[in-house]
């Protein structure tokens, strides 16, 4: 067990560009590496990765970058990615591996943990080091956010965890910070897969409400798909992503990737506006960690108010037009002011 040393974060890339989640993981990794007094490595699998992006990983806190490049590692496929990672772990013996709880991380990490006989904790919100033992303490919400469980892996190594995107800030860039870039060769026999990616349909409308700084979500209270359009109007005014309760999705007012809650997405935005959403525990589980929560509902006893900072008790058909009008006035006033200032 003591052969295992060093902290790894699993950086992610798309078409050769390092993704933002990597910088958030560096924040987590740097804290743990400093507490453990061991080096922090960013491990990246991909193809033709931008040199500037690699240097940036070091500027944002990695002591070294371990890079495995191959045309077959461009798109994520679980078996080749796992085999390459397994080889790297067996060569370097890191004590901790942290990945993003993304579609890639949530698939690769459990596959890899089985192959390594390692412990893995999903979707952690807090990571810390236990004084004395040096074990990783992993805290995560469970049972629909009703409890927080702290989990550790006392014996197996490496200790593995995924963390929620946007649950921490990206590491700051320190110009001139130096480190090493290690290029690891990739053996061809690791690259076979039963899966091939034959196409990609970009869907900006699904664009990741989990990543949004603000989310405006609508529910059953809108009563018709026509009225539900007010959610989009408000989201536009607030530069927010559009979310929805399960009821709204089940009524086909909006598609599933927008669903917030236990059977949809978990979001942690700076602002969450819930309109016409009663606040079933399944919905609350997906949004109660937002920084500021605003609710508009005609039922003064709706559960949503129990997690809200500001609530308007009223008919959304009356409240929404006024809110939209005030925001529009405010925006136009701001625009004319800056015009005056500029002119």
């Amino acid at each position, binding site marked *: 067990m003591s052969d295992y040393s060093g902290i790894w974060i699993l950086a992610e890339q798309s078409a050769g560009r390092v993704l933002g989640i990597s910088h958030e993981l560096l924040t987590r990794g740097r804290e743990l590496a400093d507490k453990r007094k061991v080096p922090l490595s960013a491990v990246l699998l991909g193809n033709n990765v931008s040199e500037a992006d690699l240097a940036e990983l070091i500027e944002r806190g990695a002591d070294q970058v371990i890079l495995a490049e191959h045309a077959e590692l461009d798109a994520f*496929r*679980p*078996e080749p990615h796992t085999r390459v990672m397994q080889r790297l772990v067996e060569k370097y013996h890191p004590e901790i591996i942290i990945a993003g709880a*993304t*579609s890639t991380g949530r*698939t690769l990490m*459990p*596959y890899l*943990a*089985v*192959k390594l*006989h*390692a*412990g*893995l*904790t*999903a*979707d952690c919100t807090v990571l810390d080091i236990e004084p004395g033992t040096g074990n990783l*303490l992993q805290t995560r*919400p*469970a*049972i*629909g*956010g*009703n*409890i927080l*469980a*702290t*989990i*550790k*892996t006392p014996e*197996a190594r490496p200790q593995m965890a995924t963390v929620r995107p946007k649950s921490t800030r990206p590491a700051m860039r320190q110009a001139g910070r130096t480190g090493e870039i290690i290029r690891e060769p990739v053996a061809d026999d690791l690259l076979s*897969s*039963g*899966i091939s990616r*034959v196409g*990609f349909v970009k*869907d900006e409308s*699904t664009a*990741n409400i*989990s990543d949004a700084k603000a989310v405006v979500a609508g529910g059953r209270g809108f009563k018709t798909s026509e009225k539900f359009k007010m959610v989009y109007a408000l989201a536009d005014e607030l530069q927010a992503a559009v979310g929805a309760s399960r009821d709204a999705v089940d009524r086909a007012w909006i598609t599933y990737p927008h669903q917030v809650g*236990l059977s*949809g997405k978990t979001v942690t935005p700076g*602002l969450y506006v819930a309109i016409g959403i009663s606040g079933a*525990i399944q919905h609350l589980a997906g949004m109660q960690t937002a920084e*500021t929560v*605003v*609710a508009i509902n005609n039922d003064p006893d709706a559960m949503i108010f129990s*997690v*809200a*900072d*500001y609530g*308007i008790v*009223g*008919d959304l058909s009356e*409240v929404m037009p*006024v*809110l939209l009008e*005030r*925001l529009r006035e405010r925006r136009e006033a701001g625009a004319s002011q800056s015009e005056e200032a500029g002119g």
Partner: protein
Amino acid sequence: MNIIVPIKQVPETNAVRMDEATGTMIRDGVVSIINPLDLYGIELAIELRERFGGRATAISMGPPKAEEALREAIAMGLDDGILLSDRAFAGADTWATAYALSQAIRKIGDYDVIICGERATDGDTGQVGPAIAAFLDLPVASYISKFEDFSEGQMRLHRLVEDGYEILQVGLPCVLTVVKEVSNPRLPTLRGKQKARKADLPVWNAADIEADPTLVGLKGSPTRVVKIHRPKVSRQCEKALANDEASTDQAVRGLLDLLEKRELI
């Protein structure tokens, strides 16, 4: 096309009550249901079986009571159910759970596709599906949102990722984990319910699936829960009543003031 659908019985989350003193879940009187996200996998399995033939079998690891979930799956339209139940399985984390399920799948032997729900609503990890694939050395296509077709031994599938949908070709055998978009679960029929009541559900223990005793249950689990506590969401909701023009105006003004103060607009 022979299909295996691993499912989990979970407490109905609406009914979850917490013991405020101990921070643990009160399980007495809590209604158990099939993990809601497993229903989409069950439905896809039924649709594939209807189109391509074969058998669709549900398996579940849990206490004897978990056979209710298997009967429900049969009532919806699956052909068989197998329960893995043994005190030795208790306390399993996702690693040890996936190990036991993969041993049972090996014992079943004749399968083409394993379909898992995206995650269970109680544990909420989403790790067991990919982990089963790893134990069986199979490809795993996760977050599948649409089955397009099956020809020449390849499935054509859509996979929901952060910025859209990947189109994948996946050879059999394979493991799929599916999201809600993939299907519309049907309700059990009266005939299905009758069939489910009469169904003979084998119960397999650790020896039956030739499990290594050091790899199942708590003993086989690399992770340990060291502490459980209840998060305190303490927000003081400032409520404004909007029941006429003047109060609506005031309520909206109050909201804008708060958003400005917190630099959210």
